[in-house]
Every structure is written in C-alpha cells, then in structure tokens.
C-alpha cells in the first residue's frame, strides 16, 4: 500500500529514506495512530516541505525520525529508516543521541521558549561542540562566537555571554540556527521556524536558512502550514492530512496542478495579497480527531467531490499520477482541480 515516492533521487544522493513510518500515542482510550504509514526520501541538498493543518502529524513525523518521541507514551515503528545508509531503527537511545547534532539537527517554532533561560546563549551553542566534537571549553567558545557571527548576530563576542531574555525573537531563532549548524549536520529539520515571527524577520530567517543550505549542501525538511513559505523555500512538498501523506509533488506541479482536493482546498483558502479577491472560500468542518478516523478516504467528510466509493473501506492508496507526483484520491483521474498561477 505504501511505497517510497519514485521521484526519489538515486541512492547515492539520498540522505534519508523513510518507509512506512507509524507513530502511536497513548491516549485515555488506548493506543491511537497519529502517523500512519508515512514514506518518503530526502535528497542531498534538497528542501522538502511538509504541509498540513495542525494535528496532521507533520511535526510528530519529524520528531519520530529524530528519536525524540517520549518512549513510554509513544510507539514508533518504521519499515525503513535509513540515514545515509545507516539503519536508524537498529539504534538505541544512546546511539540516537549521538546522531542528533552531528547528523540530524532541529529548529523549533518557539524561539522564546526553545532556549534555556538559565544559561548563556553562548554556552548553549558551545555545549553541542563539547558534546559531539570533544572541543575544549576555550575552543568551543571560539567556535560558538564564529557561529554566532555566521548566523548574523551582531557583536558575537559580547552576545556570547548574554542570556536568551536579552535577545529578540529573531535573534533567538538565529541562535537556534547556530546550534543546529554547530556540527554541520546532514539534515536540518525546521519545524515551523518562522511561524512565531514578524514577516520582515521571517524573511531574514528564510534568507539565512537558504544561504546556509547553499553553503553546506545539507538537506532540509521544512514543516509549515504557510503555503507562501512553502512556495518560497521548498523544492518538493508532501501534503499531510490526518496522519497520512495525501499528496506529494515537486513544488511547481503541486501549486499549479494539485491532484488532491485537500491541496486544492488549502490553495483556494489562502487570501492572496497580490490579488483583489472576492469571497474567501474555506474547507468546511475540521480535521478528524485522533482515534476517530472516518472510514474510507479520511478527507471525505470535508471534501466537495465526495462520492459513495470514498466513504467506506480502507483509506485509498497513494497513487502515482506523474513521474514525480503522487496522490491519495480515488477520483483523481476524473477531477480537474484548480491550482495557482
């Protein structure tokens, strides 16, 4: 039922391979599946966007890949989870910790709370270097100041000794990027890194991420719900809904020729700043709650193209609709969906 997208690059340039990732969480009513059979691969130097509404499972997918889901309340299973050929499913907690930092680094949404208020910003960068590269206190400090400088923090030597509360939101996010960059990882996972920031600061941060990626040729997974940001930074996009990938395509294909009604709905719901728009449309209803997935296509209760065949049985399979394009919609051959120009 699930398989990797055929648009995946040849093995030599594949950084990450994920096949059939399933994440379950413990709820009051027992185990519930929040990520259901997610498969994708990530090429070297590629920026892969994952979009979806809150609760679609996009963050959980990435936390699970990085081994950051809490063990007792969650269960993570994957057919394949391979980072540059190394099988991550075989690693224990300790070995995963060795991976995080030098191989996979993360940037989170809330720059205000993601840094520890009790330690200086510099120490929080330097400790990564001490932990993974075995640098001395002095060497790690020098390197941390370089990193602060690289991510555009003015006065890095002085700022090294300051605490997070003395930094603005944008500056804190730069510090987070410096932490992520410290060991030049193969993959950076950025989980809504600009959602909490003002637009002008968002533009700065996106610019910085782009520059860093160019410099080091690292792969980026970019999680966001903002289609504008996706259009700005991604090469390829996965659309998630209710724990499943419902569509995957190269950036331009996805926006110009969406193959899943959900993606069409997302595109139509965005008010456009560059156009005079009439009435705004919206996807009716709400995403299903965890543990209460509808039968058949999970999107059918909110879909305007729903037919009888969509409402029962298993969720439809992810189908190939083009060399680089997949969708999880039964009716895709008969539908002509609207994209943006």
């Amino acid at each position, binding site marked *: 039922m699930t398989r990797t997208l055929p648009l995946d690059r040849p093995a030599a340039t594949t950084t990450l391979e994920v096949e059939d990732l399933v994440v379950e*969480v413990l*709820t*009051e*009513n027992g185990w*519930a599946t*929040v990520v259901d059979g997610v498969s994708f691969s990530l090429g070297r130097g590629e920026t892969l966007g994952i979009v979806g509404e*809150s*609760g*679609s*499972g*996009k*963050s*959980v997918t990435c*936390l699970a890949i990085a081994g*950051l*889901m*809490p063990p007792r*309340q*969650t269960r993570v299973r994957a057919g394949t989870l391979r980072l540059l050929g190394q099988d991550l499913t075989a690693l224990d907690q300790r070995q995963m910790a060795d991976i995080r930092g030098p191989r996979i680094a993360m940037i989170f*949404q*809330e720059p205000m709370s993601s840094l520890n208020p009790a330690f200086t910003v510099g120490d929080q960068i330097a400790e990564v270097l001490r932990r993974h590269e075995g640098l001395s206190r002095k060497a790690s400090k020098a390197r941390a100041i370089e990193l602060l400088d690289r991510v555009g923090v003015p006065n890095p030597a002085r700022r090294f000794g300051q605490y997070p509360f003395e930094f603005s939101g944008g500056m804190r996010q730069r510090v987070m990027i410096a932490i992520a960059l410290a060991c030049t990882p193969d993959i950076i996972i950025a989980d809504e890194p600009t*959602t*909490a920031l003002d637009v002008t600061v968002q533009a700065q941060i996106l610019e910085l991420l782009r520059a860093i990626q160019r410099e080091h040729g690292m792969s980026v997974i970019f999680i966001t719900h903002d289609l504008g940001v996706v259009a700005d930074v991604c090469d390829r996009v996965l659309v998630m809904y209710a724990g499943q990938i419902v569509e995957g395509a190269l950036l331009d294909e996805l926006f110009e020729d969406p193959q899943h009604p959900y993606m069409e*709905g997302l595109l*139509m719901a965005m008010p456009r700043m560059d156009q005079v728009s009439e*009435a705004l*449309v*919206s*996807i*009716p*209803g*709400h*995403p*299903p*709650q*965890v*543990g*209460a997935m*509808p039968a058949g296509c999970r999107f*059918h*209760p*909110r879909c*305007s193209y*729903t037919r009888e065949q969509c*409402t029962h049985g298993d969720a439809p399979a992810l189908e190939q609709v083009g060399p680089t394009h997949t969708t999880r919609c039964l009716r895709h051959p008969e539908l002509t969906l609207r994209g943006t120009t």
Partner: protein
Amino acid sequence: MTQSQTGPTTSELSVAPGAPAAAGLPAGTDVAAVAHPPVRHRGGAWSNFRRRVAKNTGAVIALGVLGLLVVIAVIAPWITPADPNQQDLRSVLLPPFSDGYLLGSDQLGRDILSRLIMGTRVSLLAIVLALAVAMVIGVPAGFLSGFLGGRFDMLVMRLNDAAMSFPPLLLAIALVGVLGPSLRNAMIAVGILLAPRFLRLVRGVVIGLKEETFVEASRSIGTRTRTIIVRHILPNTLSPLTVAIAVTAGYAMLSEAGLSFLGLGVQPPDASWGSMIREGFLYVGRAPWLGIFPGVLIALTVFTFVTLGDGLRDALGREERTES
C-alpha cells in the same frame, strides 16, 4: 500563529473523543456550528470544577472521610461509649481492648476512645475558627490589594512580607503567651499566621483576572466596575479559594495540635487530639498507645486534607484548548 504548544510531544495531537465531521456539504458552506458540536458537558467554571472533582477518585474519598469526621464531630456527645471526662483512678493506663475501654484508658482512667471522639469536635472547630480568622483577614486584603494595586498594594505587601518573616509557630506561641493560653486564643494566633497564604493567593488570582481579556472586554462594553467585580472577578476566585482552604486546613490542624501539645491550646479537662499526645508523651514508656492513637488520627486527617487539596488543584487545571 499564537497557538502555544503545550509540550514536546502533544503539540500536534488533539487527543479527545472526537466528533466526526458532517458529510457531504459543499465547500464554502458555513458549517462551523454543524460540523463541530460543542463537547457534551455542562456548567460554568464552578460546576465544571465540581464535575472534575467528582472524577478524581482521591478527592472523592477524601471528601467522604472528611464528611464522616464532620458527622462524628456533630454527634460526638451521643456516641461516646463513656463520659470522656469521667475519671476512674482504679483503672488507669489500661491497654487497648481492655474491658470497657476499647482503646485503653489514660492516666486518670478516662476512656481514650470517648476522648478521641470528643476531640474530633474540638479539633475540627479549631480548624474552622483558624480558617475563618485567616480568611477574614486575608481574603479582603488580598482582594483589595490585587484590585487596587499601586500604593495600597505596596503597603499591604510590605505588611505581608513582615508577617511572613516571623517563624510561624513562634509567633503563635508569643501571641498565646501574651493573650493567655486557650484554644480560642491559639486559633486566633494560628489564623493570623495563615492569613498571608490567603492574601497572596487572592491577590494573585485577582491580578490575573484583571489581565484577562474578558474583563477588558467588559470594560470596553461600558460595564460598571462594581458589576465587573461581582460578575467576573468574584465568581472566578471561588475555585482557587476552595483549593487553598483544603490545603490550609491541614496546616491549621497541625498548628492546633502543636500548640495544644505545648499546653497553649485546649485546656484540661477538655481534649483535642494534640493535647492527648501531650499527655501520652508523659507516659510514653509505660503506655505508648496514649499518644499513638491521637497522632494517627491527626496524620490521617491532615493526609485527607492534603489529598483533597491535590485533587482540587488537579481539577482546577486550565481547561484544554481545542483547536478552533
């Protein structure tokens, strides 16, 4: 954009018994109301609070135990097996399960069980008195301090700081020493001691409420300050105040016991559990049960209050925010 994340793992999960969305409606229809019916539980903050308390096993058991104690205290004079002050010098310091003395007798031959039952009344009354004093001082002061702010608040908080810098029991001892030992004086002293707890709590709650958007909204509507206080502020202080009462009751009981143990509280021949430990202490070598039983009762009662306080506090947790 402003949705805050609750934690590292739950950020993406809205785990709740979900309502399946309505089917077959065309795009763009206004279905917010239809597709997402309100969750099925009724009542305002207060009754919502009560509903959650009812779901908390610990709190319910604690309430039951407490209810039992209150009943015992009320009907105490009618259920004691013997006159609690009746001395019988022929049968002193009898061990438990002696004939006619289920839990033994004390140094004057009085029935320990009967004294414990009467002591329930004294001990609970003492708690009520201390709490009343503490709340009469602390609640209005805290309310005004929080609501008015400014200089008044500063003055009250300085006074409060001063009160808090007294070692609690020592101040009570000094006060009782000056006023003369009696249960009433002891509990007034304990009440004064506990007042800062209520003051700080109420002040904090009121300051928090003043910041709430619904209070600002009410001001923008043109509601009178008096009405805002009565309709918005007071009802929302009720639940946290209840928690504080439960927690503080435990401290009041321990303080009463301590003062009575020192002979500064209840005066002979009346007995509270604390004063019975005092007597037991004198005969610890010969008749340890004298002190053991009242101690167990105190510990149980305070434990009940602590459990109740924990349960109430859990029930108080902010309501979860469901996705819009």
